[in-house]
């Protein structure tokens, strides 16, 4: 009999460790299977015919020329859609294929299936569509005036007549950012031979894909199974359906597996973008800098279809004041419907746009008061026990705003002298010499909700079962690259006391929803479900064998191994848990209520070098302090922070889809610029840990906060270097080099 003495230590590979991700090696060897890489014998390739106009009436569609191409198996239009034919994440307002009218540039009009990709593309191009062009509505304010809106928000809190002695007003704009995940949209649909279909496609939320396929095509739920697959990033771009319903239609029509992969240019029209925003702000404070009143109007451009515009707008409005106290607030919001490309989820989800507005205002206020910008923020810092300025919600979980500010203020400012062109604005273009560079420093803070809000029944299911090899966590939660496959296994190990655990993805027919991999929610939600399931399993096992410990070897009692692992798993041990976060509610008519389940704050300090004459910027450092609850995998969090900051920097200085008359002018990687390794700032991060969130072991979601305040911090630093007002992101060279100095 095995005996042991001494206390059991922390389980190997458990929470708090920076375990290496299990999919790292296959990804490094090129062996990891992405949606783009799937292949089954006899499969066809799909392609899409898209509208070249942002707004037009479809006069006629002639599919004959496409069908005439050898190797083409199907050309389908709206008339071929078997069911109700509409989809949408919040409202099913988008046709699977445009019927009478196209409402945005690139809207799908026909789909084809052919024997190879090249033939499919040629066939898609051969479909002849006659359009009668209509005037596109491209200005969101005009849409507001015409009442073309997806949602209006009204928030009124406190004494509406409150007035402060120091007033700053400002107008701000955020351009249209793209998630630009490196893997484009891709998928494979395989008909099951009895009217159903298995879908393997890029996704952040397979259950909601499945529901939309079922609803749009008039199928029964059990006929469609959506499978999680490997995807090359997401950042919000995979929350909405795009090629999913098309693939299922083509597979069911042809009776063959059909694969489709969007090329980059198509991807830019095939998924939703970050909402461009226009924001008018008025902040009033007393002489000591305490906020007395904040007024804001926020207009976001939702584009042609609803997607998640209503929720994005709500978020922008709920976080319109930021992580600050204020008892008199008025916010009006408009989610405009236009003929621009549809906008939806992107990392930060509405909080990004508002943050650029309120943090720009806080800096203006600090300047007006002659106060240090961090001190102004400290004086207004929201804390647990306060009420959110906009909604009046009592903050019940830890909210370390002051701790984040103090951490940032205490971080040493380490900026190396430029050693090579890469450290200078203009980089290898050799535009700028060190004496032409002005340095600037800027700060910004942010707040973001974690999980879904406004009364949405937000839950995640996970199953933990034991096998010969250890514990298996089954889930439909999507790994987008963030490390879900790491952290769920870590949680299971710590909760079970067993070092062998791995995550397996299962399809929609075998487990209930894990919800979306978005809103920074999976560590808390799927992690919460995994934690609970693993803990219950451990309790049941210990109870059953009257044990006092469970580990890799088996069940222990009084220092003796009473049941070996091998024996233990001869019996079936599994536990399935559906985890819900604390309930939230819909807002009242003044936008008041408990709309959010949890919050996270972050702060950023950016250091930039600017060539003011040419308007070129090199972001040198972005240091950060972030509220993480509890760090379950510190290196993974560092990866989220560095990557999130890079996207925030991208929005600050280069990333924008440029529209002209509703058409995207730069739908390529040549012209939609993503930061390169020579644009990457150095990052130092402090993880602020505080116990008390409802997430597993007190963890909070960490994915979005890095992307929110990094943008205004960079812009603040550019303002600091140049004295320019800069009310728009991305900041373009001409905004720095040509505009008048305003203050």
């Amino acid at each position, binding site marked *: 009999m095995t005996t042991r003495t001494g206390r059991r230590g922390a389980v190997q590979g458990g929470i708090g460790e920076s375990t290496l991700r299990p999919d790292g090696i296959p990804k490094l060897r090129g062996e990891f299977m992405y949606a783009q890489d799937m292949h089954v014998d006899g499969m066809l390739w799909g392609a899409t015919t898209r509208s070249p106009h942002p707004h037009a009436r479809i006069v006629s569609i002639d599919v004959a020329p496409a069908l005439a191409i050898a190797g083409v198996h199907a050309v389908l239009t709206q008339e071929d859609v078997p069911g109700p034919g509409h989809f949408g994440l919040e409202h099913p307002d988008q046709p699977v294929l445009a019927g009478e009218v196209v409402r945005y540039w690139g809207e799908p009009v026909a789909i084809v299936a052919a024997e190879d990709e090249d033939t499919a*593309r040629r066939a898609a*191009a051969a479909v002849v569509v006659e359009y009668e062009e209509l005037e596109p509505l491209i200005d969101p304010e005009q849409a507001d005036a015409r009442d073309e809106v997806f949602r209006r928000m009204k928030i009124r809190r406190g004494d509406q007549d409150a007035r402060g002695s120091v007033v700053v007003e400002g107008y701000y704009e955020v351009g249209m950012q793209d998630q630009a995940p490196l893997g484009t949209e891709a998928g494979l649909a395989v008909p099951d031979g009895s009217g159903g279909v298995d879908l393997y496609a890029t996704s952040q939320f397979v259950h909601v894909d499945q529901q939309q396929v079922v609803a749009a095509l008039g199928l029964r739920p059990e006929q469609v199974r959506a499978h999680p697959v490997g995807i090359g990033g997401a950042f919000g771009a995979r929350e909405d359906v795009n090629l999913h319903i098309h693939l299922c239609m083509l597979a069911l029509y042809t009776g063959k597996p059909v694969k489709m992969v969007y*090329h980059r*240019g198509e991807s830019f029209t095939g998924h939703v973008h970050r909402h461009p925003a226009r924001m008018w702000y008025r902040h009033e404070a007393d002489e000591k800098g305490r906020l007395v009143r904040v007024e804001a109007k926020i207009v976001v451009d939702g584009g042609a279809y609803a997607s998640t515009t209503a929720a994005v707008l709500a978020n922008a409005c709920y976080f319109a004041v930021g992580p600050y106290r204020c008892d008199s607030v008025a916010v009006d919001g408009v989610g405009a419907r236009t003929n621009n490309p549809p906008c939806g989820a992107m990392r930060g989800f509405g909080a990004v746009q508002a943050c650029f507005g309120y943090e720009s205002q806080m800096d203006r206020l600090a300047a007006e008061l002659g106060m240090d910008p961090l001190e102004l923020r400290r004086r207004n810092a929201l804390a647990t026990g306060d009420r959110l300025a906009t909604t009046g919600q009592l903050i019940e979980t830890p909210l370390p705003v002051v701790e984040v500010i103090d951490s940032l203020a205490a971080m040493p400012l380490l900026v190396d002298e430029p050693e090579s062109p*890469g450290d200078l604005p*203009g*980089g*290898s*273009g*050799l*535009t700028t*010499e060190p004496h*032409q560079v002005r340095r600037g420093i800027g700060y910004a803070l942010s707040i973001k909700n974690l999980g879904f809000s406004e009364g949405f029944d937000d839950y995640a299911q996970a199953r933990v079962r034991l096998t010969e090899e250890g514990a298996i966590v089954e889930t439909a939660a999507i790994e987008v690259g963030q490390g879900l496959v790491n952290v769920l296994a870590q949680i299971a190990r710590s909760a079970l006391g067993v070092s062998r655990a791995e995550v397996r993805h299962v399809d929609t027919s075998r487990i209930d929803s894990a919800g979306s991999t978005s809103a920074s929610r999976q560590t808390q939600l799927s992690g919460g479900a995994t934690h609970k399931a693993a803990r219950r399993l451990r309790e049941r096992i210990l109870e059953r064998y009257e044990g006092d410990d469970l580990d890799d070897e088996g069940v222990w009692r009084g220092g003796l191994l009473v049941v070996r692992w091998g024996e233990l798993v001869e019996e079936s041990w599994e536990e399935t848990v559906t985890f819900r976060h604390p309930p939230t509610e819909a807002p009242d008519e003044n936008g008041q209520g408990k709309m959010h389940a949890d919050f996270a704050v972050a702060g950023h300090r950016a250091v930039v070098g600017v060539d003011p*004459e*040419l*308007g*070129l910027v*090199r972001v040198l450092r972005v240091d950060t302090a972030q509220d993480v609850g509890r760090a379950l995998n510190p290196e993974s969090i560092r990866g989220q922070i560095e990557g999130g900051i890079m996207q925030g920097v991208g929005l600050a*200085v*280069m990333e924008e889809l*440029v529209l*002209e008359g509703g058409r995207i*002018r*730069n739908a390529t990687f*040549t*012209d939609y*610029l993503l*930061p*390169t*390794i*020579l*644009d990457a700032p150095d990052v130092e991060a402090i993880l602020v840990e505080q116990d008390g969130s409802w997430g597993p072991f007190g963890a909070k979601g960490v994915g979005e906060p890095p992307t929110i305040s990094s943008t205004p911090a960079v812009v603040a630093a550019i303002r600091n270097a140049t004295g320019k007002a800069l009310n728009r992101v991305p900041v*373009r*060279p*001409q905004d720095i*080099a*040509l505009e008048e100095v305003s203050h």
Partner: protein
Amino acid sequence: MEVIHPRDLDEALAAVAEGMTPLAGGTDLMVEVNYGHKRPERVVALRRLTDIADFESTRIGAGVRWRRIEREGPRALAQAARTVGSPQIRNAGTIGGNVATASPAGDGLPFLAAVDASVELTSTGGTRLLRWDDYFVGVKQTARRPDELVTAVVLPDGLPERQEFAKVGVRNAMVIATVCCVVTRWDDGTTTVALGSVAPTPMRARRAEEMISSERSPGEAALAEFARLVSEEVQPITDHRSTEEYRRHAAGVLARRLLERCLRREAA
């Protein structure tokens, strides 16, 4: 689909004369192919054609790649080479390809304009040498006949003692030029200024050149006037990459800075 690999230049010229599409590094043509804009069915691949890959002092074979020019080219052309795409692109892309494509934003082209280089065009009928300003005709339009290949870029004997290149782009690497500029200056003060991305073809700012060439040690007023003239002479447009106004401004700033660099090196 047919791709041939000619053993020598004559074979390549015969293929082009027959109407085959020349393919050099592929960095321009394959973008067009991948995006469905071009679909050549008969291609003559020049990548391994050593006949046009020599780099002698004043004659740069069309097949010479940017990676090599980065190391071995004259100063300003090497600086320009360093900004062509990425390491991957510079390993594949050639100077002949840059010249044949004739994009207004071609990074290597302002240097050719600045030093009055010529483009060597060869067909089965023979060879002709066209000065750069006779060769570049418009946006992606040149005087090359379909039966001709760009076989070399020919530099004049003796290059300016001072020459500097710079390029404005919104990102620190791998970026299309918003404006790029070459300034050269001889010991006798003769100055040339050539620019890219500010006109349908690479261009020279002749009035600015004339003004500054007579200044042996230009002071602030002359430098400012020089920049102003450059800004005035360029003919940029507003597009999704930038605005006309910014391009004018940046052209002047770049030209002045590069001239100042030349003057500093002259003084040193």
